[in-house]
């Protein structure tokens, strides 16, 4: 409960709590590009 209240208070004061440093992948490796869902070739008429 104390932790929740601390988080809530911090969120009010600062907007939220930055934790990007805790994302393991913040180490700068490159990712492959990801193909999207829900698209199709555009068929031109005429």
């Amino acid at each position, binding site marked *: 409960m104390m*932790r*929740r209240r601390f988080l*809530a208070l911090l969120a009010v004061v600062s*907007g939220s709590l930055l*934790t990007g440093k805790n*994302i393991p*992948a913040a180490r700068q490796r490159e990712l492959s590009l*990801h*193909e999207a869902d829900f698209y199709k070739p555009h068929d031109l008429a005429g």
Partner: protein
Amino acid sequence: MRDVTCELCPRYCTIPEGGAGDCRVRVNIDGKLVATTYGRPSSVHIDPVEKKPLYHFHPGSAVFSIATAGCNLHCRNCQNWQLSQRGGEEMERIYRAEPKDVVDAALTENCHSIAYTYSDPIIFYEYVYDTSALAHDHGLKNIFVTAGYINEKPMRRLCRVIDATNIDLKAFDDGFYRRNCSGSLKPVLDAMVIAREEGVWLEVTNLVIPTLNDDMATVRRMAHWIRENLGEETPLHFSRFTPHYQMRNLPPTPVESLHRVWNEARDAGLKYVYVGNIFGHKSESTYCPNDNTRLIHRVGFSVEEYNLTRDGRCPVCRQSVSGVW
């Protein structure tokens, strides 16, 4: 030329090779549509669930919250425009975090859920979907905070992996969407109905902007529509507007206006109506719709007192309160 048509949202952008959709982040590369921000969040925070806002979904829990650049709407009053109205390449900070990294971080931080939020997560749809599926495998819940401008097929598919959503109903007025957001109303209403049909916990937010969407007749129509189509137990959050981005000419919403819209929605029969962005306001708390017992006392984003029974009932009259507790 190998143009593609994106079918994710109602814009149906036709994108030439090398070009991006209206959202800036879905790009045609060699005839394939690529979600360029997949695994590349620009905003990563831990928030209380009340900030989303979700008031009837595991109150007081911590939510690991991520967003990438881009958006498929262009609201003149956007609060997060530095994130939403930019492409990934324009961001100062881009993390590398595949779904597994996000889930690991959420677990490490003892979060209950992952929220896809801040910008509109519709535009990083595939990243949301894959992360959500993995999160479920690890016992985490998923929260989708969105403006709901999405097509039916992707919305229904997404509902398989989402547990709760807050949909921002910007106004019950198609003209408002066209003038201020470059969108339209109907797809948003459809998305809310789909969320309800698919069993996703739904709460609705309406930002009350002076002179633009605070007309009482419109608010009344909106409240009636919610009651008829989503149910009288759907929580509705009225948020106070503060000037941002391209809408700095208007003043913050007067507190009196928020009281009026709150009353209007209650009169229309909605049981759980809240006022947000006014710290310490009485209507931040949840009351029993039967005997008015204060069930959850909130101050800002903090839960100060929790009186619901374990099975989500009023402890005094045993009235059941809708939600995921």
